[in-house]
């Protein structure tokens, strides 16, 4: 099926793009058998927070895995700027400036915190000492635990470490899969604060979130996915006002 041009491109909110836009056109992804994600199109612009929300099993995480090359896609395209990056394997995709932070297993448990951060610098020469120092200023918790194995960190600290590792390369696109899942409410605030801080620094941030109210409230643009297909899209706060939508697809949240 030839890729169709995107209909209804996200409205501009006046921000000046500094990096390339991530464009997903009619993507179909699955695990073999019936595709979990069908014909989904999204766009994540630099300097913006783009949220993907939807009920459990809507295919949100699967979509992200298709975008970052963890799962092979069977239809559609992924573009970074004008470059086609469809089905580029993860170890090459990171060299294009896309960082992916999975929901689970997002740190190397037996490696120390410092070594985890160094892995974020893997594609470069050297150990990224200066960048580690910068990120420790952003995530002060990490500085005191640099020598500890990552498996000894709390859930919140692990997420901070995973975020910091994803930021080591100063990515153009940061892809986050449920960064606040399973965390204590106070820690959720902290992690989410970092996500907004990261977005303000310039990269396109594409996030799948279970905490729908918060993510819609802060999303410059949001997509609602149901049954693996595009359902609705629009500026996050506007979608949040759509009471029917919230009730039907998202629940109390």
């Amino acid at each position: 099926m030839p890729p169709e041009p995107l209909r209804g491109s996200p409205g501009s909110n006046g921000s000046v793009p500094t990096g390339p836009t991530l464009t997903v056109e009619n993507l179909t992804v699955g695990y073999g058998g019936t595709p979990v994600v069908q014909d989904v199109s999204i766009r994540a612009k630099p300097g913006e927070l783009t949220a993907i929300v939807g009920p459990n099993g809507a295919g949100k995480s699967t979509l992200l895995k298709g975008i970052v090359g963890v799962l092979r896609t069977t239809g559609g395209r992924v573009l970074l700027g004008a470059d086609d990056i469809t089905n580029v394997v993860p170890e090459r995709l990171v060299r294009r400036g896309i960082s992916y932070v999975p929901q689970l297993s997002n740190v190397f448990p037996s490696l120390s915190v410092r070594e985890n951060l160094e892995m974020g610098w893997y594609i470069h020469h050297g150990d990224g000492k200066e960048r580690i120092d910068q990120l420790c200023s952003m995530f002060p918790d990490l500085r005191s635990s640099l020598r500890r194995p990552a498996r000894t960190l709390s859930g919140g600290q692990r997420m901070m470490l995973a975020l910091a590792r994803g930021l080591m390369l100063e990515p153009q696109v940061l892809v986050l899969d449920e960064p606040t899942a399973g965390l204590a409410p106070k820690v959720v605030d902290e992690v989410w604060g970092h996500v907004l801080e990261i977005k303000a620094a310039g990269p396109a941030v594409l996030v799948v979130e279970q905490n729908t109210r918060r993510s819609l409230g802060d999303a410059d643009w949001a997509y609602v996915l149901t049954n693996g297909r595009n359902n609705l899209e629009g500026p996050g706060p506007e979608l949040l006002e759509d009471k029917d939508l919230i009730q039907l697809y998202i629940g109390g949240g």
Partner: protein
Amino acid sequence: MLGVGFGLVTASIVALSTVAMSLQFSVTRTINFAHGELMTVGAYAAYLVAKSTSDLPLQAVAAMAAGAALGWVLNVALFQPFVRRNATKLVIFVLSVAASFIIQNILQIGFGGSYVDYQAGSTTAYNVGPFQWTAMDIVTMVVAVVVLVVLHLTIRRTKFGKAQRAVADDVLLARTTGVGAQRIIAFTWLLDGAIAGLAGMLLAAQVGSFTPTLGFGYLLVIFSAAIVGGIGQMYGAMLGALVIGLVMEVSAVYVNPSYKESMAFLILVAVLLFRPQGIVTALSESNAQ
């Protein structure tokens, strides 16, 4: 005390081979039943070179090269094609069993089934403190310590070593950080083969003569050491090797030496009964709490 001295020599050889296997297992997640053959080809390579020169370093290089080559080939020609087709761990294990017997039989075609003699270094014994060692015993222990220290530094300090540990922790996450996991795995097989090949040469030098089943006969001892230390734990493997090596040789002083290997399995059974996760895993878990 003599038994302890021999035990340290045996432990050195077991440690080299076990650490290599542990590293390979933790990075590649493949249980390789043909690990003994990496040792055997190392022994035969050293034996062939020894025919033309008594130069030990040259024999060692040949042993390491032969082991490394076999490790590389096993990965590329045998395991990877099946891993790519999502074969289960059991299938891969059975493949490695087949590989073990195929290699043994190929060696038998080439060298025959009877013992070949391999003499390395002089057999003059020296008294060192309470121990009695030959020059080759001392070389064996020094080589083992040097190789293990270099391996430790490689794994802890170098980028390759960190990538190996990252792949051991989580292949997918390692790939998303830019690690070419396939290359790391291939080089791990190479390293595993080189160290096991060297261990095979040292073992051959200890026993003096050997057949194509040299490494195979040692495989269960090495599995025992790996399990006693905590499977996939490199430092546990060193400790496990020390325990197994000492028990084997010290027991030989008191009971018939042909029970040596049975003693190793006795320890294995005891560890499995009381600390099934191995000694070192148990230690590190209590640290974490």
